[in-house]
């Protein structure tokens, strides 16, 4: 089964947690939509169990890097300014 968790950062992108069953010992595979922004984003996901009146929670922190920025320095154009830095999407 797969649980979709929105990043809620205005991008409409989500995290996906895939696992066999929501009980006992499991491996949960965490993936995400590609990050279209440039800034690392963080999401806390709570795992919890309830037994009687007791609830136990554990927090998984998921961090996703922003996409890379390529810095190109151009000095082969006529300009009154040298070493003009411009960022381009990689």
């Amino acid at each position: 089964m797969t649980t979709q968790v929105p990043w809620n950062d205005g991008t409409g992108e989500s995290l996906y947690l895939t696992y066999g069953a929501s009980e006992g010992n499991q491996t949960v595979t965490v993936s995400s939509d590609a990050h279209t922004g440039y800034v690392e984003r963080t999401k806390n996901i709570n795992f919890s169990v309830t037994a009687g009146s007791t609830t136990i929670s554990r927090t998984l922190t998921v961090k996703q890097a922003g996409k890379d920025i390529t810095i190109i320095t151009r000095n082969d154009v006529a300009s009154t300014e040298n070493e003009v830095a411009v960022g381009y999407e990689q």
Partner: protein
Amino acid sequence: MAYASWAQPSKTQGNGNDTVAWSASDHTGRSPRQTQAVFAASGVTSKTLTIVQAGKAEYVSIDPTAAVAKGGGSVTITGRSNSSKLTFALTGDNGIGLVLPTKYLAASIETNNDTAITGDPGASQEYTFSITFTGIGENTTIGALVSQLTVTANNSTSATCDITQAAGDAYLTIEPTTINLTAAGTAVNVTVESNTSWTIS
């Protein structure tokens, strides 16, 4: 010679023709017991009365239930019997995973399971027995565990004890607790360990 204390006459003296009723305390041994009472009067030959009390049918009883802490440890189960030999066995599913001891105590005598009890104390009176299970492990589940002990007397009568181990605590771990995804969102695995169902939010 005086009669045994377990025999009780309705009267200890009289005059002329009379009836004496005899009663007895509870006899728990398997074998019959007997005593003699002497009736004496001046100038006549004494008369002896033999009093016989039947033995109690062979039996065995045991604590019907026993409890083990969720953390495990040991539990002692007691019972009573007048049998010459007791045989213990774990019956049913043995959910606790008990290991049957090879010895137990019968009338404070260490006795091997399924072996005649030294001195056969049950012939004359009932005795108390006990059997102790040790090294019981922790219950790592959130449900109670149950095992059943059956004790059988030499005449095949039996009794059972339901042994219940209290439910363990729920647990939940995740490893690692922080993961880093690439910008492309490539999958990363997280291990969840629990003894019950869990939710994600």
